[in-house]
């Protein structure tokens, strides 16, 4: 694949400011046809902002965007589409009350009649090729975030165009899904379409990317050109990227792989015991059935599985957010009916994966969100009246400890970048003295440095005696952290595997559904 000489789209000295932040600072980049351009950078580096200008959602404050060498002011998403720039945004962009098919067709002239028939068929193929089964007539609000993202990717691929921008498209995909996406990007390339590929997984970046560029603090701090990239041994390339992203030596390259698992001896006290638990999420309708497992003091119990297999409802049931049948025993105490507040007091924490949807109140300041689950409790409230000093002090401490990047603790959380919101959320759940923590995709959307930090924290809190349930679609992560691993398929816990050299294979076979119900 020879990169065509002249770029499809180029950014020239583009600057974008937001209240309190310079999201992009004189960034210049070229995107070539038939080339996958991997765009890397830590949380808040300005990736999404940059592409939002390509998509016509934001306008540059300074600098210009050139298409085929000619400067254009991209006025609107419509304009962007008409220029052949298609985008899959980091946050979902589907209309929840419309069906998948209707969403796919959105944008046609208003007087026309939607011809659903053809779309259904076409979509089914595409979905199959993608290794997912989503009903084109399903209402989008009933899909998991993962499924929603897959639908959007398919939509973007359909539209084709000349430049395809993907903002963290793999964040919620299964390993198989990621492979498929890679293959598809390959096909697009062959058609001479340029692709901008944003990810936090260096491996993916290097697997699929022909060219790598890195943003840091809003600035473009360099990258690796195709020829160098092909020449360079993988390890060196990896090291180089890490250096660009974080300056020297801050993060080790194999952190990207999640680090290696070290077997530990654990006390035999069961901190959390789940027996025959079943339930379904009224919101999403997805459910889980007859799930049983236990977690010992200080143990990390991983739950692997493709998104959409009932992990979220399971987590919500454990947290007491949705009703469920069966028994959940915490530290020898039967928890009984759903009751979030009580469970929280007893030391059961749930770090949700739906940070914007339910984890945070976007319009409230970071400081308030940090104490969202302790409203009314001392020292933050006295006789029901809030004590700002205490709250702010608490917030500032966590703010620093978790390295949140934002103008200040009074910034509305909604303004933060995806990764930084995640940091605030973890900061809140880890504070205090938890006995059991249920993580759902704890590092999704985080950059390397934060992934490393977060995983270290998960380990430390576990070693401090916290029983941990780690739900993740990132197998590497599960293998890196867990002592034992359960696998969920279609709402059932199809097996539990001791972590070890054989684990990856065993888990893979379980996920593929090869062995049926030989739960330990």
């Amino acid at each position: 694949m020879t990169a065509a000489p002249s770029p499809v789209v180029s950014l020239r000295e583009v600057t974008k400011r937001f209240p309190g932040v310079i999201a992009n600072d004189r960034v210049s980049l070229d995107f070539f046809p038939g080339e996958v351009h991997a765009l890397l950078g830590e949380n808040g580096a300005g990736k999404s902002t940059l592409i939002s200008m390509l998509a016509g959602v934001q306008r540059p404050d300074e600098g210009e965007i050139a298409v085929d060498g000619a400067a254009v002011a991209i006025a609107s998403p419509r304009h962007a589409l008409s220029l052949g720039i298609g985008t899959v945004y980091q946050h979902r962009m589907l209309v929840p009350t419309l069906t998948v098919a209707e969403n796919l067709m959105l944008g046609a002239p208003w007087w026309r009649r939607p011809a659903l028939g053809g779309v259904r068929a076409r979509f089914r193929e595409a979905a199959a090729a993608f290794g997912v089964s989503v009903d084109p007539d399903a209402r989008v609000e009933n899909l998991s975030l993962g499924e929603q993202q897959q639908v959007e990717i398919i939509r973007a691929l359909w539209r084709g165009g000349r430049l395809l921008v993907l903002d963290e498209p793999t964040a919620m995909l299964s390993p198989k899904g990621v492979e498929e996406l890679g293959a598809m990007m390959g096909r697009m390339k062959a058609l001479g379409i340029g692709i901008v590929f944003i990810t936090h997984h260096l491996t993916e970046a290097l697997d699929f990317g022909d060219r790598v560029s890195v943003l840091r603090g809003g600035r473009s701090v360099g990258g690796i050109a195709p020829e160098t990239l092909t020449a360079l041994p993988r390890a060196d390339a990896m090291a180089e990227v890490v250096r660009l992203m974080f300056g020297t030596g801050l993060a080790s390259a194999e952190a990207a792989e999640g680090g290696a698992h070290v077997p530990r001896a654990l006390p035999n006290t069961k901190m959390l015991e789940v027996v025959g638990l079943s339930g379904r999420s009224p919101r999403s309708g997805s459910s889980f059935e007859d799930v049983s497992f236990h977690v010992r003091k200080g143990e990390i119990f991983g739950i692997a599985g493709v998104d959409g297999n009932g992990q979220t409802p399971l987590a919500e049931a454990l947290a007491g957010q949705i009703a469920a049948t069966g028994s959940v025993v915490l530290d020898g105490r039967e928890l009984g009916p759903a009751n979030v507040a009580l469970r929280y007091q007893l030391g059961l924490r749930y770090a949700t994966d739906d940070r914007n949807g339910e984890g945070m109140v976007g319009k409230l300041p970071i400081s308030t969100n940090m104490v969202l689950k302790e409203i009314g409790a001392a020292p933050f409230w006295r006789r029901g009246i809030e004590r700002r000093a205490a709250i702010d002090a608490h917030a500032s401490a966590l703010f620093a400890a978790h390295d949140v990047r934002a103008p200040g603790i009074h910034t509305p959380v909604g303004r933060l970048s995806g990764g930084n919101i995640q940091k605030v959320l973890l900061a809140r759940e880890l504070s205090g003295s938890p006995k059991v923590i249920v993580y759902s995709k704890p590092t999704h959307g985080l950059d390397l440095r934060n992934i490393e930090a977060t995983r270290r924290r998960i380990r430390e809190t576990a070693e401090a005696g916290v029983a941990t349930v780690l739900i993740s679609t990132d197998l590497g992560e599960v293998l890196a952290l867990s002592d034992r691993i359960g696998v969920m398929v279609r709402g059932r816990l199809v097996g539990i595997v001791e972590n070890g050299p054989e684990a990856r294979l065993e888990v893979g076979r379980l996920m593929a559904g090869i062995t049926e119900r030989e739960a330990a």
Partner: protein
Amino acid sequence: MTESTEFITGATPAAPRFGFLLPLGLALLPVMAALVAAGLVLLVLGSDPIEYYSYVVQRGLLRWRGLQATVVNMVPLLILGGALIVSFRSGLWNLGIDGQYLLGTLTAGATAPLLAGAFPSIVALPLAMLAGAVAGALWALPPALLRARAGINEVISGLMMSLIAASLTAAAIKLWLKDPASLEPQTLTLPVEDRLPLLAGTDINIGIFIALGLVIAAHTLMMRSATGLRFRILGLNPAAATHAGLGVPKLTLSVLCLSGALGGLAGAVELTGVLGKMQASWHPGYGFAVVPLVFLARMNGWAVIVFVFAFSVLQIGSASAATRLGVPQDFTLVLVGFLLLFLALSEYAGERLRAKKV
């Protein structure tokens, strides 16, 4: 429970206590603009704007008698403002407020005269107010239950309950509560001397202090207390409320009933303070006067006081200005319309400025 609520909760990261100063500053310009616009209408009507406006200020503000009327006029509006602050900041849109006000007035009208006969005012009036508050809360209950149990939108049910209340109170008075001595269908009258005490030598009853107290209380509750924060989270992101274990249904019930109680109290205070009796035809529709004021005040209690005061001056002043200059009373509607429009414009400009500062 996934409903648009932001436009009623508004973006309010812990609004500073005097955050209303900016809107106030921004209020002067639009007021001028509105006066000019309405002034043109006056010219078309063939009367002198300057004369009209000076009358309004004269009779609504400068004249002692007028000022008193203005203050008295504020009482129910302020309490209703408090009720709306509670509900709007919680993302619940209690448009049943007029109905709750009516039920409160009716209940106070039915009980106060009897109670005043049996007990000294110091006991009777608080009891009547309590009754009014309870009635208001009860009237808010059906919409609250529908919303809490089945997620049924409270706007529709609220409006319905208001319309029902208008007929129900009228029927109740005509059929059961009518004062036999009066031709007009109305409840027994609470004797003047048994009403809320007046400030020495004025027409102003102590209801104004109750009202001011309630608005500030509502404001503080929402902005500084744990309960208030729970309410606001409910408004800003119900899913988060569930996630944080706040018990959404219970919160919804308490918000709407509290708001309803205040609504009822507004009626009870006005009845025991000024009206003395309720007429079958009594539905002043304060709600729709207060709603825009509360929005303009960005649900800030202090600002609500200011806007309600200005609004009352206008109401009292223009009533007599129209009388004196032969301008039809409905001109006031036009004037208020213009004011709201231009004030909204500046409120919006203010929000823009604020956004820049953050």
